[in-house]
């Protein structure tokens, strides 16, 4: 629904970088891998948190 605050595996705070990652790699056309390198999210456990995430707030909000 919302990006998890921390990486499930290592506990690193990944939520901090979500907005920038979303703006540059999802809405922008930069390479996700390069953006993550740039943000300092370098372990693959943390990277998958960002790469595989989908915001679902818009989907569930009508059913409040």
């Amino acid at each position, binding site marked *: 629904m919302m990006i998890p*605050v921390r990486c499930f595996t290592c506990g690193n*705070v990944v939520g901090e970088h979500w*907005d920038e990652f979303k703006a540059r790699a999802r809405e922008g056309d930069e390479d996700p891998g390069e953006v993550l390198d740039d943000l300092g999210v370098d372990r693959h456990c943390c990277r998958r948190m960002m790469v595989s995430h989908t915001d679902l707030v818009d989907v569930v909000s009508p059913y409040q």
Partner: protein
Amino acid sequence: MSEADFDVQYIERDDRSARVLIRGLSPAFANGIRRAMIADVPTFSIDTVRFVENSSVMFDEMLGLRLGLVPLTTPIDDFEIGDEVTLALDVAGPGTAYSGDLVSSEPLVEPADKNVPLIELKEGQRVELEADAVLDTGKEHAKHQGGVSVGYRHLQRVTVEGDLGEFDEEETRILRGVIETEDGEIVPTEAFDHDLSERYPGKEVSVEDVPGAFVFHVETDGSVDVEELIVRAIGTIEERADELRTTIAV
């Protein structure tokens, strides 16, 4: 080993992450420090939340979990385990509530990261809450862990044994961590793409662990800085040794 001389050398250093080479440690002691960094150094974390209003798409409990995971800066000297600090959040949609919107009653204890999205709010939705952060250790709950992915490897000494035979195939030799060369130079393996054959082409090399030398990888979630975390971890072991001594004396 009481006459042990410790030698501490930072290989990489940042506020939140570092690689530290420590010489003169016994394996038991190295592991004690590692475990203490993970489980025994206390940090603040939100533990109790009182909701005044929550009309967001998430349940109170879900928001409570997210709030608990937000790292809070922790000046450990000024507080004791069990101390509480109150924070408040009041955000109305449309918009997103960020960790930076948390208002703390204590300026020393505030969110270490300001851009963590807590909950996205639509038109007409609102979240108002009061939260108590408590100082506790990682042993109690993982959200109180100050150290993130703390670990160590042996320092490895690489010795050149001679040239590779004329018809020998050059093979990759993958190594991770930090090496010490024959002339005492400390080189992280990233420098040669973790491949010894890049650094010593055409050479026959041998690798061995350096006894008592550990390369710690220390990363924090922002609640304390790296040096503080290491020193505190050592401190908790010292405290327990002192406690043992006084208990025996009684």
